[in-house]
């Protein structure tokens, strides 16, 4: 019991350290790169620029700015956005993140359920027609960027069939096409991962034991082999959550969803350092929490993984 508590404390400390380093890296990258938040076609008068820098706490030596910024972040103040004047990063994120998270969560569930089902069936029917078809479409989905997949889905389901709305937000049916567009490539990837993992698992000794014991194929595949075969998929869940977050920018643009995905791109292009800091904290926090969860799930699925072993 003591070791479990100790392990948890160590994990949390590690997580906080990673977040601290990532936030620092982004802070210095965006501040040291050429170009500033108030650059425009016309050069601002020196006094105005100085006043602006002071207002946004961008004056003084860089290390001092950095320390003050860290202090504010720890207090939960992500500061003002330099692009969306007079709006705080906290406020911007509070308005946009729920949309992106809702979209991402739906896509996440689609990816996991759809991908795993397809992968398991493929491995089960290894070498058969189902396997070949599933893997063909999986490769197709991976090979098409989502900004190509999206318009095609819109053309088919909105314009030709008229089943779903083209864009917008608010009702459940608005969620369907964006979530599918976001999920498909990752679903295909997960299906391939699952298939490979399951094929390896079906080679193992315990499968032969199960067969000798007279268990049915279904029980062996869905109950016993899956526990081992899904380990690679579980390890991928952390990166998946992060990919869905940054990948949402394409989908949000295509379907006119006012989410937070675009901030990843536009905060860099606008040199909006604090907004960038905010989305990076969200990104990193999500990744770190998911990785910790994954660690836990892996331990439950495979008790052989000891607490000190790195996967």
């Amino acid at each position, binding site marked *: 019991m003591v070791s479990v508590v100790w392990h948890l404390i160590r994990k949390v400390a590690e997580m906080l350290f990673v977040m601290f380093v990532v936030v620092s890296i982004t802070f210095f990258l965006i501040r040291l790169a050429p170009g500033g938040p108030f650059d425009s076609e016309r050069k601002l008068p020196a006094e105005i620029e100085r006043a602006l820098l002071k207002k946004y706490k961008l004056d003084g030596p860089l290390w001092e700015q950095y320390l003050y910024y860290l202090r504010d972040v720890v207090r939960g103040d992500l500061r003002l956005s330099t692009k969306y004047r007079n709006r705080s990063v906290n406020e911007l994120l509070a308005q946009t993140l729920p949309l992106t998270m809702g979209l991402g969560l739906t896509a996440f569930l689609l990816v996991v359920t759809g991908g795993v089902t397809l992968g398991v069936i493929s491995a089960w029917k290894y070498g058969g027609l189902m396997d070949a078809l599933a893997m063909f479409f999986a490769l197709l989905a991976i090979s098409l960027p989502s900004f190509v997949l999206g318009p095609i889905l819109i053309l088919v389901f909105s314009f030709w069939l008229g089943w779903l709305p083209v864009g917008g937000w608010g009702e459940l049916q608005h969620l369907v096409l964006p979530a599918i567009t976001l999920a498909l490539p990752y679903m295909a990837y997960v299906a391939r991962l699952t298939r490979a993992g399951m094929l390896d698992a079906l080679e193992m000794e315990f499968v032969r034991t199960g067969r000798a014991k007279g268990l049915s194929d279904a029980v062996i595949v869905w109950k016993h082999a899956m526990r081992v075969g899904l380990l690679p998929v579980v390890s991928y869940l952390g990166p998946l959550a992060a990919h869905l977050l940054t990948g949402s920018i*394409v989908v949000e643009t295509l379907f006119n969803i006012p989410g937070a995905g675009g901030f990843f791109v536009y905060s860099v292009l606008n040199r909006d350092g604090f907004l960038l800091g905010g989305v990076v904290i969200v990104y990193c926090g999500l990744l770190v929490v998911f990785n910790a969860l994954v660690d836990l799930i892996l331990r439950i699925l495979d008790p052989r993984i000891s607490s000190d072993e790195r996967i």
Partner: protein
Amino acid sequence: MREFRKRLWRDWKFRVSVVVLLGLLISSSVGMELMDKAAGEPGPMQQSPPTMEHWFGTDLNGRDLLYRLLVGLRVSFLVGLAGAGVSFLVGTTYGLIAGWFGGWIDNLMMRIVDILYSVPRLVFLLILIHSFSEQVGELGAALGWSWLQRWGKVMILVLGLGLTEWLTMARIVRGQVLSLKWRAFVEAARATGAGVGLILIRHILPNLGGVILASLSLTVPSVILDETFLSFLGLGVEAPLASLGTLLADGAAAINPIRSRWWLLFFPAAALVLLLFSLYTIADCFRDALAKPLLAEKKVNKKKF
């Protein structure tokens, strides 16, 4: 290694993919030379569907789409290969050093990799491209190097893509080095007084060939896909150059219910799918050939399911 090659060629999927890939490579490198140069310039026939004269139709400015597609394919190939090359150089060097020296050096270097996995690579990529592509252009103008002015942005793009794709390579190489470094042939080299660099390059690197190849075959398509994503954002290759990404972005914008100019999307998408399909299949074959020495035997076993 010979066994590895033999196993690869026995796989029909591998043979087909190599033929498709070579076909794309050859047509993108010599195809344009066979066509009329004027086909790549804006012309009077705007947005024409495929005809006998323009096999793949023409684009918004009346340029022949086939010609543009060949240009785009060539640029995408270059970006993919060069990006993978950068990631190979960085990842392999890093992994070799970490694995060879071991101990606290290895520990530190691998923790750094762990942390870098948590940095959103998109952000790093955008900062690099957006901050430095202007500078490179100006530098080219100041030095009077026209090639730098023309290719500077593409070079920054390739550098950025390569610099954000090396982490997995470093991990794989490091793991292999750890298992190789106490083998007898390495001991023998050490005993003859060979330096660290010589041992790493002469004796260890050649033994990593298969793993590196398998990893690179996945890096090339993912760099190509990343470039299409940047093109969608308007940060990829710029006109008058074209890449598959910019053509796809233009094509996707041309899709609407009133007048569907399907050829603008269909042909670039088909080219990308062919390219990535063959690359991914080759990657799969590499993996199978590396990991499953008894493939034939296993197939019999799996048939039962």
